[in-house]
């Protein structure tokens, strides 16, 4: 019996990395046999992240959704570092949703690396310790005297591959509290490492959700209400049903699904469906929203302040100078290059979900609720996403796929949105307006700050954002106007428009106080360090360091020629510190062109410099692109923009040069997918002010007519 138990234990000892909140290593004994690789080797799962076959080949599972932020490379690097294997020899596989063995399988909040930093290294170190123990036992030597190198355990001239040891290792109890390496011993973390899927990408072999094809699968396109505030009354689908390749036309919720053999055929057929829509509420336009938001901001704040230090009323009454500015930011679409899509195959007692999703666990929960299925009967596999930017935190497209699969008679379906569906389908960044008011005392010190924000179907404030903590009288108020327009987080949620307005306003305060913008920020950070007011959610010293460094590499305050003008911005978000200098050139005709952004980032330890750099470059250019060109407007509830001919995206020609400096750090990593986006628009706007004397208060900036 003992033999049998060991045999069962040996192959499938799993480490449940994080049961509960901390680093509790647990067990799952799976009473199944181990698998066999193609050439006859046994593949043993040492834990949920590490599989080693008896020939020594190592596979590391990557549990987080890959959205282009590079986690399928950077997270396995953490495991590989501690497991001590040759990065070039290992295989990385995407894991599906598995809430027993993994936690936080989410792509969002710039959280993947920072949430995995401790646990993933611990998993690698624990697996390595088990391999060492197996070798030590085989050789009859103390485990403490054994070492590892590149997939081998070594001891005084003796050497065994992990493949030779894995069967024995898997029989051992999982050790607890295994130490991880000090930063000085890193060989993989901190190395420039290419994306693990590059070869499949450049050869066109990599499959995205939109590429999913299965036996018997139908493509589905969905007709949704053309305006926010409309519902489906009736439809005539006779002509669409006769269209080539069409199999079914279904009505569900407020939508119509057309199913058929190819995307082209169903999209052609969808044009032949004649729906009757009716208004179920007020059909609102952008101008209405502007009026509503400005109306809210013109009144005294009604709700409880989101943050309140000191007494701004008294401070404004006593002020030597009061400064006010108001800003507007439009709705934005996410416009992922891969439009929304999802595969679903619902059966009588379960469902398979497969596709691009930032929140697989939330999707499973929604489908379980919607189809009244137990969660354990629903599988979710995440495909590499052709962009997310927050749109794929939503689950509406997964729900559509599951509903259509069931209503069509449990057939496998791939629901594919056209670009027009994607751009007009809602879930936008909320349209927002902001009103700022500041007071200076007789010494030109900032003594009061009031931020009042209003957003459509969302928005809000970031109440603890700098200069919170540095100003004795500080108040933040936020209001939301509820509308039928659906909104969603959009890369750097809230921060993306807060930083633009707040950093522009700081620039204006510096001007009116007769101070250098960099010097003003450093003065305020010194206040927050020496005499903090209320809660301070940033470290003033780290914040000051990125500001000083950006001023240094950007040549702040030094002449770069009479036609070059600079602007400064700095923002703390997702636990990372960012400071930027934008450089604008005034051309012979007086028009302005953004040439370059200098950026300094403190995001703690950089796991993969290659991935980190491209995140920084990309998010800056993304921030510039949207501040310069993008807006989604509505007329009577209908989006006015539908595709890239009338929704301008930044292209290669408009992309500024970007120079990046990472602060060398050995503290735990912090966010990086988002923090460099929010200040970029502000740095540009402040450079524009330096060049032209015009304060850009509304996005998109292109409307100002100042640009080449």
């Amino acid at each position, binding site marked *: 019996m003992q033999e049998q138990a060991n045999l069962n234990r040996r192959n499938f000892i799993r480490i449940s990395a994080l049961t509960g909140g901390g680093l509790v290593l647990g067990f799952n004994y799976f009473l199944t046999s181990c698998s066999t690789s193609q050439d006859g080797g046994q593949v043993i799962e040492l834990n949920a992240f590490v599989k080693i076959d008896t020939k020594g080949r190592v596979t590391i599972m990557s549990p987080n959704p890959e*959205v*282009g*932020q*590079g986690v399928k490379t950077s997270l396995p690097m953490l495991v590989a570092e501690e497991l001590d294997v040759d990065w070039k020899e290992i295989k990385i596989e995407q894991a599906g949703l598995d809430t027993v063995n993994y936690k936080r399988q989410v792509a969002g909040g710039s959280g993947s690396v920072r949430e995995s930093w401790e646990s993933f290294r611990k998993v690698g170190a624990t697996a390595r310790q088990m391999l060492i123990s197996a070798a030590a036992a085989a050789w009859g030597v103390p485990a403490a005297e054994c070492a590892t190198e590149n997939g081998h355990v070594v001891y005084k001239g003796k050497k065994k591959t992990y493949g030779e040891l894995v069967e024995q290792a898997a029989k051992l109890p999982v050790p607890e509290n295994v130490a991880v390496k000090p930063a000085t011993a890193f060989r993989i973390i901190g190395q420039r490492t*290419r*994306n693990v*899927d*590059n070869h499949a*990408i*450049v*050869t*066109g*072999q990599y*499959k*995205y959700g*939109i*590429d999913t*094809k299965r036996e018997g699968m139908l*493509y589905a396109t969905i007709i949704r209400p053309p305006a926010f505030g409309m519902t489906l009354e009736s439809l005539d689908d006779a002509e669409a049903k006769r269209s080539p390749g069409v199999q079914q036309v279904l009505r569900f919720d407020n939508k119509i699904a057309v199913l058929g*053999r*190819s*995307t*082209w055929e169903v999209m052609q057929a969808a044009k032949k469906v004649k729906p009757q829509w009716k208004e179920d509420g007020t059909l609102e336009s952008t101008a209405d929203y502007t009026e509503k938001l400005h109306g809210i901001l013109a009144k005294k704040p009604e709700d409880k302040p989101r943050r309140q230090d000191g007494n701004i009323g008294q401070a404004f009454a006593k002020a030597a100078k009061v400064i006010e500015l108001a800003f507007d930011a439009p709705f934005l679409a996410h*416009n*992922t*290059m*891969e*439009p929304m899509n999802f595969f679903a195959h619902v059966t009588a007692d379960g469902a398979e979900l497969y596709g691009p999703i930032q929140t697989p666990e939330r999707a499973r929960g929604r489908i379980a609720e919607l189809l009244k299925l137990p969660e354990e009967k629903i599988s979710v596999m995440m495909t*590499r*996403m*052709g*962009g*997310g*930017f927050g749109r794929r935190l939503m689950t509406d497209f997964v729900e559509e796929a599951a509903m259509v699969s069931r209503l069509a008679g449990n057939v496998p379906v791939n629901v*594919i949105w*056209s*670009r*027009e569906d994607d751009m007009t389908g809602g879930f936008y960044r909320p349209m927002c307006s902001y009103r700022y008011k500041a007071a200076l005392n007789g010494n030109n010190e900032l003594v009061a700050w009031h931020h009042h924000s209003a957003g459509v179907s969302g928005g809000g404030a970031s109440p603890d954002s700098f200069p919170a903590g540095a100003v004795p009288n500080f108040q933040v108020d936020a209001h939301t106007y509820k509308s039928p327009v659906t909104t969603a987080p959009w890369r750097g949620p809230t921060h993306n428009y807060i930083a633009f307005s707040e950093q522009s306003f700081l620039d204006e305060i510096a001007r009116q106080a007769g101070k250098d913008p960099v010097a003003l920020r450093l003065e305020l950070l010194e206040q927050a360090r020496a005499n903090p007011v209320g809660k301070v959610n940033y470290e003033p010293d780290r914040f000051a360091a990125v500001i000083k460094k950006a001023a240094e590499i950007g040549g702040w305050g030094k002449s770069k020629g009479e036609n070059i003008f600079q602007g400064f911005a700095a923002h703390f978000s997702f636990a990372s510190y960012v400071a930027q200098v934008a450089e604008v050139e005034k051309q012979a005709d007086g028009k302005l062109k953004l040439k370059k952004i200098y950026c300094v980032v403190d995001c703690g330890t950089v796991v993969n410099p*290659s*991935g980190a750099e*491209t*995140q920084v*470059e*990309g*998010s*800056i*250019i*993304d921030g510039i*692109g949207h501040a310069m060109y993008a807006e989604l407007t509505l007329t009577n509830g209908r989006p006015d923009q539908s*595709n*890239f*001919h009338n929704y301008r*995206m*930044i*292209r*290669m*020609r408009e*992309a500024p*040069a*970007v120079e990046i400096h990472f602060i060398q750090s050995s503290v735990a990593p912090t966010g990086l997918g988002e923090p460099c986006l929010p200040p970029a628009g502000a740095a540009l706007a402040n450079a524009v002010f330096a060049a032209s004397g015009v304060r850009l208060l509304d996005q998109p900036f292109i409307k100002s007519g100042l640009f080449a």
Partner: protein
Amino acid sequence: MKINVNSTEYTLNVPDNTSLLDALRVHLNLTGSKYGCGEGACGACKVLVDGRAVPSCITPVASVQHKSVVTIEGLEKDGKLHPLQQAFLDEDAFQCAYCSPGMIMAAVALKSRNPHPSRQEIIDAMQGNICRCCAYPRIINAISKA
């Protein structure tokens, strides 16, 4: 109808106005070319037709009969990557990488007519391709170095 894709002749039974992109992706199972906008504005679907990079989403499949079509899947020769594929791989010129096949095809067309483009010539030639992740600096570097 017969079309020649990546040096292979295929017979298709589809309406003439089917897009080349749908013919490739759905009927020939060549999914490397991506759908991005359906109006020729983003470049994700670009393929070579007689050596020129065209958006396959607005190209009727019937119009490429008797022409040579090359997709991202047809660039690799004898197990060796095309220099542009290799350069994109080496430069790590990707984030979500959904635009990459179209970017690479546009760059292949550019390099075949202008083997040593200047930075400005690269930018001008790539203006029809959107990278939503804005990996532009690395894409320019990859094309320069290929």
